[in-house]
């Protein structure tokens, strides 16, 4: 990692590492007690470790100039490793909280193991830890190859990856210690949010600088999606997290939004986190790895334009469908509902484009589990976007809202679409980055595929059943004009579904664990060879 940095970059890195250590010290000293001290200590330890490593290397020989003729893939390797670590940890916590819903009495009498603290550890861990690292790692990989250019510099990708993972660590450890902003998918407290803004700006600048160096005349569609992801997530994150700290020496902050405006801003953020974090970036992944793995051209350039601008324009409006039948004015709900309906065709255009791309490669889908991961991802993308538009219709929502149908819908998107496309991408790029033809255990990919597909189906089908059962029990009236079921009865009816959900999640987790072990075995057996075709078009000196 450090050997690939130029001497100047090592010096700059040293300065950054010192700043990080100082920041940590400052946080810990200012707070004096509570979670902020722990977080300050984490930054301090990371800063000191990096300072030590960089200081020792400042007078080492500079890296070979020939590196300019290769892509810079070390950050991608690190990012993929972090992706898999977060996946195993956060999906493990997911299975844990699923089990707690079936065996609530199994909650130990320790505050940090309560459901309310563990649940955001699961969501933040999978969305940001697993999804975010996968997006950053693959974006560097795809950006370089579709631009035929090396990353603009070697230091900023490390700032992005290390900084982002520090954010994730601050977030989840904060929840365990009991600090939260109480905004779904934006629970991390103010200083973690500010830190992420800095990291995100570095990411955006690196992306733009590298794109500006491209040796290709056109910007490939995958890069549009990655850029939309980076840019819009920055806007969402900043606006939803506008908050005043109670004290600069403490973790607690108060949002500047109030009442129904707060709810609207939160769900504008919440749904666009789905759109631009969990969709746009992963469509970028799909648009690169699917044609590469299948050896087929993208079926329709025009459909990719239609779906890109359709998604970008319509998605921004739909967040209010999370607030049907609330204090939010009716007209905002109508707009959220109708834009959700109009979003269907651009979403299906992406899914259809991906599936049509496989025309002429169906024999590969049959034989190659990696390509099958991507195919299943596209199918689940189509399925869950249809379901999303359907659930956004007000009367449908009156049945589904507050039930486990929502949970099933989210997991059909995250397990079926997001995680599957990530695994397809990982199984394509890990052997390639290891200089090998295939993964160390090719048959394990097949096992992983069937564990993942079965686990997802068991999970999603049980939650559909659970949600529709709940929705119907809650609105069923008897002959005396009163509710047929008490809330308790609707909860007792959930037991078999909650057990099945735990089993489905457990299967998915087992597959993920297999993937992590397979990747680790592949990386250990790396040859260090780089194919002649996998190079920048021209040697690119570092800026």
């Amino acid at each position, binding site marked *: 990692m450090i050997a690939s940095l130029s001497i100047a970059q090592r010096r700059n890195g040293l300065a950054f590492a010192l700043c990080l250590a100082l920041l940590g010290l400052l946080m810990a000293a200012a707070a004096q007690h509570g979670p902020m001290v722990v977080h300050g200590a984490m930054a301090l330890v990371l800063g000191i470790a990096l300072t030590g490593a960089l200081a020792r290397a400042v007078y080492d020989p500079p890296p070979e100039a020939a590196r300019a003729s290769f892509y810079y893939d070390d950050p991608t390797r690190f990012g993929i490793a972090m992706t898999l670590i977060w996946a195993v940890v956060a999906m493990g916590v997911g299975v844990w909280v699923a089990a707690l819903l079936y065996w609530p009495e199994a909650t130990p009498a320790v505050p940090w193991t309560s459901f309310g603290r563990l649940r955001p550890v699961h969501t933040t861990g999978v969305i940001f830890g697993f999804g975010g690292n996968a997006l950053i790692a693959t974006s560097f990989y795809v950006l370089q*190859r*579709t631009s*035929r250019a090396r990353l603009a510099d070697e230091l900023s990708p490390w700032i992005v990856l290390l900084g982002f993972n520090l954010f994730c660590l601050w977030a989840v450890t904060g929840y365990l210690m009991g600090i939260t902003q109480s905004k779904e998918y934006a629970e991390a407290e103010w200083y973690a949010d500010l830190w992420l803004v800095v990291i995100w700006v570095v990411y955006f600048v690196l992306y733009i600088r590298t794109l500006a160096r491209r*040796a*290709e*005349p*056109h910007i*490939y*569609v995958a890069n549009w999606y990655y850029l939309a992801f980076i840019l819009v997530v920055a806007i969402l994150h900043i606006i939803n997290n506008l908050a005043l700290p109670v004290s600069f020496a403490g973790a607690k902050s108060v949002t500047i939004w109030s009442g129904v405006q707060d709810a609207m801003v939160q769900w504008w953020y919440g749904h666009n986190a789905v759109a631009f974090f969990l969709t746009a970036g992963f469509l970028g992944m799909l648009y*690169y790895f699917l*044609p*590469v793995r299948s050896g*087929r*051209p*993208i*079926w*329709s*350039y*025009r*459909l*990719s334009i*239609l779906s890109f601008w*359709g998604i970008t324009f319509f998605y921004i409006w739909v967040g209010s469908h999370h607030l049907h*039948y609330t204090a939010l*004015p*009716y*007209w905002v709900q*109508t*707009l959220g*509902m*109708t*834009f959700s*309906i*109009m979003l*269907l*065709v*651009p979403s*299906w*255009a992406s899914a*259809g484009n991906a599936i*049509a791309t496989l*025309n*002429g490669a169906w024999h590969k889908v049959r034989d190659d589990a990696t390509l099958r991961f991507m195919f299943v991802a596209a199918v689940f993308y189509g399925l869950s976007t249809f379901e999303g538009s359907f659930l956004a219709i007000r009367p449908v929502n009156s049945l589904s809202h507050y039930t486990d149908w929502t949970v099933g819908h989210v997991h059909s998107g995250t397990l079926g679409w997001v995680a599957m496309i990530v695994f397809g991408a990982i199984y394509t790029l890990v052997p390639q980055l290891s200089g090998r033809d295939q993964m160390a255990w090719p048959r394990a990919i097949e096992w992983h595929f069937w564990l993942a597909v079965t686990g997802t189906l068991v999970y999603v089908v049980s939650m559909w059943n659970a949600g529709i059962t709940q929705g119907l029990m809650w609105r069923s*009236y*008897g*002959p*005396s*004009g*009163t*509710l*047929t*079921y*008490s*809330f*308790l*009865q609707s909860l007792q009816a959930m037991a078999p579904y909650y057990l099945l959900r735990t089993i489905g999640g457990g299967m998915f987790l087992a597959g993920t664990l297999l993937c992590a072990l397979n990747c680790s075995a592949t990386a250990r057996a790396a040859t260090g060879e780089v194919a002649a*075709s996998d190079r920048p*078009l021209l040697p690119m000196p570092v800026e």
Partner: protein
Amino acid sequence: MSGGHRQIVDPVTGYETTGHEWNGIRELNTPFPRFVIVVLLITVVISAVMWILLPAWPTGHGYTPGLLGLTQEGEAVQGFKAIADGRASWRSRFAGDDFASLASDEAVMGMAMPAAARLFADNCAACHRVGGTGGPGFPSLADQDWLWGGDPATVAETVSVGINSTDPDTRSSQMPAFGRDGILTREQISAVADYVLALSSGKADPASAGGKIFAENCAACHGEGGRGGLGTGAPSLADDQWIYGGTRADILTTLQNGRQGVMPSWKGRLAPADIHLLALYVSRLAKAAP
């Protein structure tokens, strides 16, 4: 640039590529399928119709109200009215508290008791458990042993004002912390605990040391024979029912720290008719019990 702008015809689909190429990735110049455009237009038309019919677009100071004239408040009022209409045939009877005539009217009770069961499960079962069997700290309602009385009027009063609650008319019931507050010595507590255990097995000797301590300190609330006092909320100690547990250790804990169980006042949360429903339901729970 690699590939330049060479258009190639894809042999599988017969479409030309766009001529762009990125490290081997190409794109076909497939035209929009007519189907996609038609469905996109259909979704736009559906949306436009909804914008015309429903409240939709902001206009600065207000919004377009929609031809159907729907409002959320209107929908809510209509929904509540429909619910009230569905119950009107029997619920008005419960506004009053003539429990005797209500209880004897099986037609009304047949309609009302399923509703009362929902009310009980949603509001009471969290502490008293489904079926009212109670648990540690929460008395059973499905037996004949009452702290304050089990006739519907008394139950309605208890539900209304609560026990040790924040309501000004609350029922109050305090078991002092005999040990912690130094009212009795350790030896005395030990002796009276033995006496209480003996009470429930029917072998108590009032002349024993524990019996004398009981008569001086406990009988004022729990009664001479430990049979409880309905005016004070003190439970009977002469049966095999225990709220806080009947082992010697449980009884010692109770004597040491006292007990001040709380039941909330429900009159601000439930309508009088609901409280009357619950009172009849709870009194029937006890009657149904063996």
